[in-house]
C-alpha cells in the first residue's frame, strides 16, 4: 500500500527573503506514524502549519485523501493539531477544552459527555474534567491537548514537538504511550521533532529536513544504515567519513582507492570509474584488535571514554585528517579494559558496513 494519503506536492513557502520550505515533496501513507526531523529552523513547523492550513504555500499544492486542501481553511480540514505550546484555552476547564471542537456536531448532551469522558480515560485523566487549565502540570496539559484533538476523530493528527517541553523521564514515557495510542486509533500521525532518537524509536518513516529541503524519506533502519547524503548521515548518529576515488567497477561492486586506508571493495552501483566518493562507516561497525589481521588499518588510540555498556575510542590513522571514531560493546567483564591511549590497534570493517556517497 504505497498510496499517498497526504501528498505534499512540491510545496515552497517563503517569508520575504527567507525560504522556510523549499520544494518539499512528500507522500505520507494512511495510518502511518510519520516524522519530520531536522535541526532548529529547518522548516518543520512551517510545513506542518501548511498541512493544518495556518500558512499558505507560496507555491505547490497539498492533497489529503486525494482532495486538494490548499484553499481550504483550517476549520474545514480533516486534520487536527497538537500545538508546541499546547494552546490550552485558559478560560475553560479541562472538560470544556476537550469538548470545544464537538460543538459543531450538535451531539446530545449525554453523548457529548460520554465522548469527553472516554477521551479523558484514554489520556488517564478521568476525574480531571473540572480542573482549570492553569491547575495542570506540563504533562497533563500535553495530554489534554492530545485528547482535545483526538476527540474529533480526525483523519490526520499533526503534532509539533509535543514532547519538547517535558522532562526526560516523562518524555520517554510519553513516547511509548503516544506510539501505542497511534496504533490503537489508527490515525495518520505527522510528528515534528528535532530529537533523532525520538524520531527513530517512534516512527514508521521519517523525513529528514535541512534548510527547508527534504533530504531523505525512509524507515528508521534505512535512514541509519543507508543515508543518502552526508548531511543525513551526519545528523543521525555518528559517522566516520573517508574520501576516495573509484578505481574499478564490476557488476555491482566497485573498488575504491582510499589513500591511507588502501583499496576498499564495496557494493554499490551508479558510480563511474574515476569518480570521487565519500565512504561512510558507523563507529560501532568497526572492529578493533590488538593483532594485525588481513586488510586492516593500523592506528594509535588518542582518546577513550568508558560509557558503561560500550566504550568509545578515537584512533589516529596516519594520513587521515580526522581521528577515526570507534565504538565497542563491553561484552566481557573487563571489556576493552586497558586500552587508554597510545596503543597501536588495527581497525577493520566488513564491506557491507560501508555506505558510498557521492561528494
Amino acid at each position, binding site marked *: 500500500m*504505497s498510496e*499517498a494519503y497526504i501528498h505534499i506536492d512540491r510545496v515552497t513557502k517563503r517569508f520575504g527573503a527567507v525560504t522556510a520550505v523549499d520544494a518539499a515533496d512528500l507522500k505520507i501513507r494512511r495510518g502511518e506514524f510519520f516524522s519530520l526531523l531536522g535541526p532548529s529552523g529547518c522548516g518543520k513547523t512551517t510545513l506542518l502549519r501548511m498541512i493544518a492550513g495556518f500558512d*499558505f504555500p507560496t507555491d505547490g499544492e497539498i492533497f489529503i485523501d*486525494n*482532495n*486538494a486542501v490548499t*484553499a481550504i*481553511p483550517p476549520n474545514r480540514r480533516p486534520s487536527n493539531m497538537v500545538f508546541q505550546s499546547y494552546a490550552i484555552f485558559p478560560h475553560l476547564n479541562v472538560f470544556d477544552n476537550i469538548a470545544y471542537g464537538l460543538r459543531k456536531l450538535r451531539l446530545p448532551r449525554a453523548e457529548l459527555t460520554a465522548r469527553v469522558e472516554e477521551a479523558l480515560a484514554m489520556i488517564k485523566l478521568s476525574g480531571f474534567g473540572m480542573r482549570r487549565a492553569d491547575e495542570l502540570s506540563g504533562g497533563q496539559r500535553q495530554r489534554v491537548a492530545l485528547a482535545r484533538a483526538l476527540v474529533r476523530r480526525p483523519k490526520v493528527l499533526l503534532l509539533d514537538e509535543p514532547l519538547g517541553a517535558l522532562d526526560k523521564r516523562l518524555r520517554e514515557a510519553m513516547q511509548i504511550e503516544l506510539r501505542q495510542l497511534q496504533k490503537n486509533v489508527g490515525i495518520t500521525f505527522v510528528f515534528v521533532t528535532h530529537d533523532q532518537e525520538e524520531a527513530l524509536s517512534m516512527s514508521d518513516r521519517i523525513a529528514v529536513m535541512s534548510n527547508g529541503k527534504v533530504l531523505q524519506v525512509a524507515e528508521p533502519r534505512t535512514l541509519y544504515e543507508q543515508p543518502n547524503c552526508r548531511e543525513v548521515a551526519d545528523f543521525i548518529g555518528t559517522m566516520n567519513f573517508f574520501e576516495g576515488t573509484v578505481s574499478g567497477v564490476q557488476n555491482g561492486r566497485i573498488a575504491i582507492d582510499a589513500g591511507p586506508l588502501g583499496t576498499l571493495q564495496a557494493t554499490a552501483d551508479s558510480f563511474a570509474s574515476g569518480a570521487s566518493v565519500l565512504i561512510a562507516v558507523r563507529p560501532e561497525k568497526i572492529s578493533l584488535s590488538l593483532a594485525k589481521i588481513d586488510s586492516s588499518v593500523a592506528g594509535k588510540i588518542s582518546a577513550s571514554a568508558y560509557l558503561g555498556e560500550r566504550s568509545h575510542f578515537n584512533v589516529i590513522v596516519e594520513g587521515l585528517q580526522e581521528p577515526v571514531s570507534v565504538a565497542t560493546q563491553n561484552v566481557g567483564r573487563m571489556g576493552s579494559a586497558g586500552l587508554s591511549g597510545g596503543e597501536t590497534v588495527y581497525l577493520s570493517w566488513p564491506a557491507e558496513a560501508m555506505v558510498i556517497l557521492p561528494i
Partner: protein
Amino acid sequence: MAVGSAGERQTPGIAAWPRMLYRRSETLRGYTLLSPTMVIMLLALAAPMALLALYSFWSQEGYVLSTHFTLDQYGTTFGRDTYRALFYRSIAISSVVTLVTVLLAYPMAYFVAFRVQKSKFLWLILLTIPFWTSYLLRVFAWKIILGYDGVINSGLMSLGIIHEPLEFLLYNPFAVVITLAHAWAAFAILPIYVSLEKIDRSLLEAAADLGDGAIRRFFRITLPLSLPGVIGAAVLIFVPTTGDYVSPALVGGSEGVMIANIIEVQFTKVGDWPLGAAVAIASMAAVGIITLLTVQALRAAVARVK
C-alpha cells in the same frame, strides 16, 4: 508511486480563487480589520486637517468666504507683532512646563520603578487617576487656589501673614505654567516609568561590579537607557500644551494669553476662519519643526556623550 492518482484528484474550482487569495493574503485580511478605524481617522482627522490647511490659503471677505489662493493669512500671521509675541510666549511657556514636568516626574517614576517592590500597582493607579479626571476641573482648582480672594490669599490673610491679597498669583504666565505642570504630570510619569522599568537590572549590577558608584551608574546607564521615555514624555507634553486653550483662558489673564486663544477668537467672535486656520497651521508647523530639531539635537548629544 508517482502522480498516478492525479486523475481522481479534486482541485479547487475557479470560484474558490478570490476567497483563497483573500485567505492567503495576511495583509489583505489585516487591512480589512483596520479599515473601519482607518476610514474614521481619514474622515475625521486627516481630511479635516487637510481642509484646515486649504482654508489657510483662502480669505474671509465680510460674510463671504473667498476661495482665491492667497498667502495673505500667512502674511498677517507672521507680520503682526502681537501674533509673533503670542507664539513666542506659547513656546516659552510650554518649554518651561515641559522641563518642569519632566524634571519633577523623573524621580517619581524612578521611585516607582526601582524602589517600590510590592505595591507598584497601587502607586501607578494613584499616579494615573488625575490623568483620567476632568482637565477642566483641575485647571479650575488652580483658579480658586491662586485667585485674588482664593485659597492662598485668604489662607495667608486669615493666618495674619499678609494683610493685602497678593495680586501676582493669578493671571500671568507663571499661573499658566504651574497649572499646566500640574495638569500634565501623569503624561510625563508613565512614559518615563515604562522606559525605566524595561532596564535590565543585571546591567546595573554589572556596572556596580565594574566599580561604578551609584551616581556614575545613574548617569552612565540608567539615564541614557531611560532617555527614550524622557523624550517621549517631553514631546507628549510640549506639543499639545503649546496649543492649550483652557489654562490660559482661566488663569492666564491678559499676560498669559497663548496662541490657542487667538485661534479660538478667530473661529468664534471674529469669524475669520481662514486667518484662524493659518495661525493654527503655522504654529503647528513651527512647533513640529522645533520639536524635531530638539529631539534630533538631544539624540545626537547623547550619542556623543556615550
